């Protein structure tokens, strides 16, 4: 009995202070993503695109608090999905979980911000045409049926984690989860009507750069917080979050120069995201030197997929697959080669004599895309059978801002006549 008392986990104030801040940093990434995405679409869809991210703040938070967190983090080890042990925050209080030094409810909130941004990421595949109502229903279902399952696999003691797969901050649930779900969503919802016929260009590159910068800033909380404290793993991941994207950025410059003789701003913003995604799974497991190598390497497959995707009929509009799915996959596999027990205290990769780690990583790379793609495909097919997922041709050409929200992002105010509510209702009738 005395041994049990001695082992009772205690809250560490330093760890808790950092995790409070890290949680807020990750939450900020969702509106930052909204800015990034809004800049990439046409001006008539600015608000709708941003609002899809805002919607995730509402819907995914509620699904996380009701059942999502429980499905991800309860239940025994080695399973496919958790149970309802923590549903409606039952038992989620101030006492830390076993092996942790932060309040359980803070852990819940930190993990919740991951579910939110992942749901928001998927919107990048369907912007400029999907209707807002069906999108809300989609992310409500998705944030219960897809994200928590994948999070359970690698964070909640599920079969991948149990089998030895390493994923520091969410290469499986967040990056591959969103990327391959996005591909399925783009295929089910279908291409924008003008896609491939007209040039559909980003309307504000400054938003894109600012959004990418804010995402990188928030990512220090995302990766740096995934050690759940201020220990070595968190510090390593934090520093690697500085090093890795810098290398991706520079390599992207070179790729741009080779391909088009100019370094592009939207390419640079994309590179920042790709670099941050690449280091996400690997942050606390590889040395700073290998993190820089990963940054340089991660640019190549994502760059290639973006170049290839735009020549296809697949309107995966904002390249979530390339920037998140493929870069996350690269990072997960990279661990299998270059993880170093000297740095992470857990496991070596193939290069350091442990080939089995690569096998564990490869398993995640096969299972995650399959589950994310199939589950998302089914959810949207079923939803699409019940209600139309997208606006008609006229609505799409008017832009989703006016159609869905009755607002415009860039308003001159000329010709706007103040009316009272009764008159508006009479007009609508």
């Amino acid at each position: 009995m005395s041994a049990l008392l001695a082992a009772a986990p205690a809250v560490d104030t330093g760890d808790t202070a950092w995790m409070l801040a890290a949680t807020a940093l990750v939450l900020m990434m969702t509106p930052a993503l909204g800015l990034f995405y809004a800049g990439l679409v046409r001006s008539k869809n600015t608000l709708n695109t941003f609002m899809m991210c805002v919607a995730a703040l509402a819907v995914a938070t509620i699904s996380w608090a009701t059942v999502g967190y429980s499905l991800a983090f309860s239940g025994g080890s080695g399973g496919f999905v958790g149970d309802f042990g923590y549903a409606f925050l039952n038992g989620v209080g101030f006492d830390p979980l076993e092996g942790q030094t932060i309040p359980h409810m803070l852990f819940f909130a930190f993990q919740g911000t991951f579910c939110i941004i992942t749901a928001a990421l998927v919107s990048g595949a369907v912007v400029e045409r999907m209707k807002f109502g069906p999108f809300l229903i989609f992310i409500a279902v998705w944030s219960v049926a897809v994200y928590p399952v994948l999070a359970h696999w690698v964070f909640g003691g599920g079969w991948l984690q149990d089998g030895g797969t390493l994923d520091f901050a969410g290469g499986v649930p967040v990056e591959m989860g969103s990327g391959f779900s996005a591909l399925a969503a783009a295929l089910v919802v279908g291409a924008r009507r003008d896609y491939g016929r007209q040039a559909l260009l980003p309307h504000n590159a400054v938003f894109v750069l600012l959004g990418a910068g804010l995402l990188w800033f928030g990512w220090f909380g995302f990766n740096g917080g995934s050690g759940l404290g201020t220990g070595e793993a968190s510090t390593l991941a934090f520093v690697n979050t500085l090093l890795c994207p810098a290398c991706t950025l520079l390599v992207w410059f070179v790729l741009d120069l080779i391909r088009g003789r100019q370094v592009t701003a939207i390419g640079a913003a994309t590179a920042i995201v790709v670099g941050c995604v690449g280091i996400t799974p690997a942050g606390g497991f590889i040395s700073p030197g290998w993190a820089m190598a990963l940054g340089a390497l991660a640019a190549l497959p994502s760059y290639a997929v973006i170049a290839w995707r735009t020549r296809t009929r697949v309107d995966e509009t904002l390249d979530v697959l390339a920037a998140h799915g493929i870069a996350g996959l690269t990072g997960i596999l990279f661990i299998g080669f270059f993880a170093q027990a000297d740095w992470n205290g857990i496991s070596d990769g193939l290069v350091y004599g442990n080939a089995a780690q690569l096998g564990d990583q490869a398993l995640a790379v096969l299972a995650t895309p399959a589950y994310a793609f199939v589950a998302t495909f089914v959810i949207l097919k079923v939803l699409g059978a019940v209600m139309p997922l997208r606006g008609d041709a006229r609505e799409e050409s008017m832009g989703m801002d006016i159609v869905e929200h009755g607002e415009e992002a860039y308003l001159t105010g000329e010709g706007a006549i103040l009316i009272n509510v009764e008159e508006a209702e009479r007009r609508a009738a």
Partner: protein
Amino acid sequence: MKLVIGIIRPERANDVLEALYRANVRGVSMSRVQGHGGELDRVETYRGTRVQMGLTDKVRFEIAVSEEFVQPTIDALCEGGRTGEVGDGKIFVLALDQVVRIRTGDTDNAAVTPVGN
């Protein structure tokens, strides 16, 4: 010589440009304008303030052409700009007194004929 002014939907601008190109009409100016035709007003709400948007974004094409190109230009504007809904816009054809190409000093028909045709 005529000046053809076409006021059309912004979302049809690319289709109109395409149709003009196919009709070999190459000298074009376009500007963004706001206007009001017969279309229904939109009601928008900003923080509880409801407003009726009386003006709609339109694109205005100005195309100076020689007589033989007047009808092809009008046809291209109609073909590219038409959706069949109220608000597709209007075409105005005006007589032109004089045209001068600044670079060469060419006047009138020579000035509205693109170089290289």
